[in-house]
């Protein structure tokens, strides 16, 4: 019911015609307090938007009392408890709940307010769908081709790689520092006395040789 259907406060209930003498008589019977309340309700009805639904009462006296109580009590909890919902109200509530449950905007708002964990299968399905849409068949073809080439190159390297390039052999030790007697280090004009001192000199000298060999090997000479 819209405001157009609802008569201003003080007018007769729906179905009745324009105010007659009876109603004028009723207004005349109103107390000052009730008249003031009636005027206040008329002003309120005039201020409401045109399409605002207002309750309609068949009983004018009931209507007045209800409005008086609503305006008199700011705290509605003090009103009498509502009676149990009837069958029509329950059906309307169920229909509304069903629509709210199915509506995607309501679902989006609910998930935004209190998100829940994704189910694993649902998550996998979402990922599959997203990836399938993101990688078209052509991309997969290129990826396969590049991977195949990489595998072929790795296999080729594996077949042709025979270890370090500068590994010395028995026939090719001319450029390498090789094992030899340590006598030149411990005899002659620079001879040292004492076994430990001889070992110091031997170890130092061979350390130079060893380092040189490593550099030769690393440089591939």
């Amino acid at each position, binding site marked *: 019911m819209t405001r157009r259907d609802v008569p201003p406060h003080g007018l007769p209930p729906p179905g009745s015609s324009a105010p007659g003498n009876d109603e004028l008589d009723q207004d005349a019977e109103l107390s000052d307090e009730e008249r003031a309340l009636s005027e206040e309700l008329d002003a309120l009805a005039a201020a409401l938007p045109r399409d605002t639904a207002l309750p309609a009462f068949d009983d004018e006296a009931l209507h007045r009392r209800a409005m008086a109580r609503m305006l008199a009590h700011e705290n509605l909890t003090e009103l009498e408890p509502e009676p149990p919902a009837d069958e029509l109200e329950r059906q309307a509530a169920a229909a509304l709940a069903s629509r709210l449950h199915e509506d995607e905007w309501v679902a989006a708002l609910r998930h935004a307010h209190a998100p829940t964990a994704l189910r694993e299968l649902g998550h996998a399905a979402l990922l599959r769908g997203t990836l399938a849409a993101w990688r078209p068949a052509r991309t997969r073809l290129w990826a396969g081709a590049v991977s195949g080439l990489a595998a072929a190159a790795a296999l080729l390297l594996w077949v042709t790689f025979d270890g370090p390039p500068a590994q010395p*052999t028995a026939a090719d*030790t001319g450029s390498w520092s090789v094992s030899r*007697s340590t006598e030149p280090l411990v005899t002659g004009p620079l001879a040292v006395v004492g076994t430990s001192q001889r070992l110091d000199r031997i*170890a130092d000298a061979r350390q130079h040789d*060893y380092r040189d060999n490593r550099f030769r090997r690393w440089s591939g000479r």
Partner: protein
Amino acid sequence: MRPLCWLLGLGVLVAACKPAPACDEPQGPAGVIDEPLMAYLSMARSQHHRADLAEARGDVSAARALLEQLVATAAPAGFAEVAEVRADTLARMAQLDLRSGDLDAASRSAARGLVEVPQEGYYRGHLLEIDGLVEEARSKRLEADGRLAEAEAARQRAIVQLEAAVRIQQAVIERAIQGTTP
């Protein structure tokens, strides 16, 4: 994509089955100075200096035990350096035995060292020198005990060993002066 995954997996399997390349260090058979040789030289140097520290505090037996430990350690084969270090170590052990009066142990150490360096050179000459000193000490001990014949035999062995040492070391010195290496 599944066949490609199988292909890549097969490649990894094949690569894993390929024998790893040999150690990338220059290896011994060719006589190239390599890591095992350097490790042995480092160990020998450390052990000799530990023996020095033991000797410095007068603990000759501890010094000798450290040297015996070095000689008993497995050494990389095929290197002249290893044989010479072992010979020099045995010569030092013989000297320690001589200082402690264990002439038989000194002779055994010198004999073991001479096996390590059969070629004539400084180390063999040094071992002959030590062995000569041991025989000289033995001769004196036997003579003091009144065993004159045995003392004379030991004296003769000492002369032979010391003369051989002198001959070998003279050759070493001449080679050094001439700039030739053995």
